């Protein structure tokens, strides 16, 4: 790999890292604002105009708090937990194509950290590792509530990853590739997967809610029963990492949803543009879709009450998996007919 290419990647990774962290920080602010709007309140408005410095204030608060490790806790695992959660949440963003290639200084810059040819598998893999952060943190805390939260998180992840995986297989069958860039390229213009897979989208969306531990599936950290779940014993920036990882995961899963079902950086009427304009508009389209889904995630959180645990398992195993299998079968048959297998 040439040095210039290395530098280019390095700069892009740095920008993506900063943008992801910035968006995650402002997602916390936005979440509180959205919650306030839904409840006819104002929300945070003290730090700076309209409270836009609130994330900074929160961050500063978390940094200066006492970094406490319980006496009976497994020290290294206790420290490792939030790190894993944060690492995996950030890694999933690396294979997402944020836009078409950009022409800069006579060089074509790819707006994607790595165009891995198994991109979607990579994301699924890191999502599954993500639960280790919660699991290790909850177990190392040596606290029954944390352990309950961790157990709930892992069982929930296992249950919902299946249906999610089946939905992804359906999408892969449609586009014939595991690479996220190819999947996006297949959905040129308005040819989005949502029009072929509405059922798949609903299932994938529900699973994404469960995978990111968001309401109505926020059982791993339900305050009313588990005092905060897996991060009960955490304080200071370790706690901040867990909360942050949740918002990073929220952002990346919104991005994955818009890539898989809503055409990523494709937008209607994109054939009228070309070159850098097209690439930048594509990035804009991608971010608009992503932010819309972030908003929908929040919208759902402030609308629905939490599921009961048996309802959660019931929904995952008895409803979503059969429906997604059915969806897979129908899609397979239709593809087979189109390919002329039955002639």
């Amino acid at each position, binding site marked *: 790999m040439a040095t210039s290419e290395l530098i280019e990647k390095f700069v892009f990774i740095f920008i993506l890292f900063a943008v992801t962290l910035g968006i995650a920080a402002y997602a916390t602010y936005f979440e509180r604002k959205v919650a*306030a*709007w839904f409840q*006819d*309140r*104002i929300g945070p408005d003290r730090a700076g105009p309209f409270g836009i410095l609130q994330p900074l204030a929160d961050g500063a608060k978390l940094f200066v708090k006492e970094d406490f490790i319980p006496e009976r806790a497994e020290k290294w695992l206790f420290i490792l937990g939030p790190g894993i959660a944060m690492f995996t949440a950030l890694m999933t963003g690396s294979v997402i194509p944020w836009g078409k290639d950009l022409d800069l200084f006579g060089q074509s810059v790819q707006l994607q950290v790595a165009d891995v040819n198994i991109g979607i598998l990579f994301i699924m893999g890191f999502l599954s590792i993500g639960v280790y952060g919660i699991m290790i943190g909850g177990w190392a805390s040596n606290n029954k509530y944390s352990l309950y939260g961790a157990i709930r998180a892992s069982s929930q992840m296992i249950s919902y990853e299946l249906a999610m995986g089946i939905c992804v297989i359906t999408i892969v069958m449609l586009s014939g590739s595991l690479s996220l860039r190819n999947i996006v390229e297949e959905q040129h213009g308005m040819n989005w997967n949502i029009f072929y897979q509405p059922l798949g989208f609903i299932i994938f969306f529900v699973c994404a809610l469960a995978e990111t531990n968001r309401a109505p599936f926020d059982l791993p950290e339900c305050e009313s029963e588990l005092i905060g779940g897996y991060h009960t014993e955490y304080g200071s920036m370790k706690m901040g990492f867990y909360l942050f990882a949740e918002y990073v995961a929220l952002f990346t899963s919104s991005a994955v949803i818009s890539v898989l079902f809503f055409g990523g950086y494709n937008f209607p009427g994109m054939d009228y543009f070309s070159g850098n304009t097209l690439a930048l508009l594509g990035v804009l389209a991608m971010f608009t879709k992503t932010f819309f889904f972030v908003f929908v995630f929040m919208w*759902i959180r*402030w*609308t*629905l009450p939490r599921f009961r645990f048996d309802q959660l398992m019931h929904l995952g195993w008895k409803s979503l998996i059969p429906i997604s299998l059915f969806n897979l079968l129908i899609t397979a048959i239709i593809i087979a007919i189109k390919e002329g297998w039955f002639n």
Partner: protein
Amino acid sequence: MESLSNRKQVVSKKEMTFMEKIYLPAILGGMWITFKHLFRKNNTTKYPEEVREFAPVYRGQHVLKRDEQGRENCTACGLCAVACPAEAITMVSEERKKGEEHLYREEKYASTYEINMLRCIFCGLCEEACPKEAIFLTDRIVPSNFERGEFVFGKDKLVESVEERIDITKRQHTGKRGTK
């Protein structure tokens, strides 16, 4: 039994229909309701900047009134202490000496008058019992404190000063004489 409010509902444990089982219509309905709230006016009072107006019936910190010539109204009859259900009021009475006529309106006055603000339930019975229109509850909030002892308010905190009278004319009970 006949329902009094006509809001009685018979609870049934019937099986959910298919539409109810897939949850989605109910969830979308709920989301529509929250969406409508996005455009509602918020009803927040930004407290330090704007203060909500107290109702005229609000019962806050007590005041011991003086009359127009700046003489204390209280004659230490003790009716407030008797009326007080929380037994928060204590007082010591004393006879007015010669030359103190400009300080106390009647021949007898309270040399000490204490209300324990932690005992007080702000019922306003002292105000009702008082025959001399001396004690009133106002719209002032009792300030917080770190020490319990500080909550026993003596005459220094209760009696209004001659220069800075406490306005009670907007109160519900302002006395028969309309004491200002």
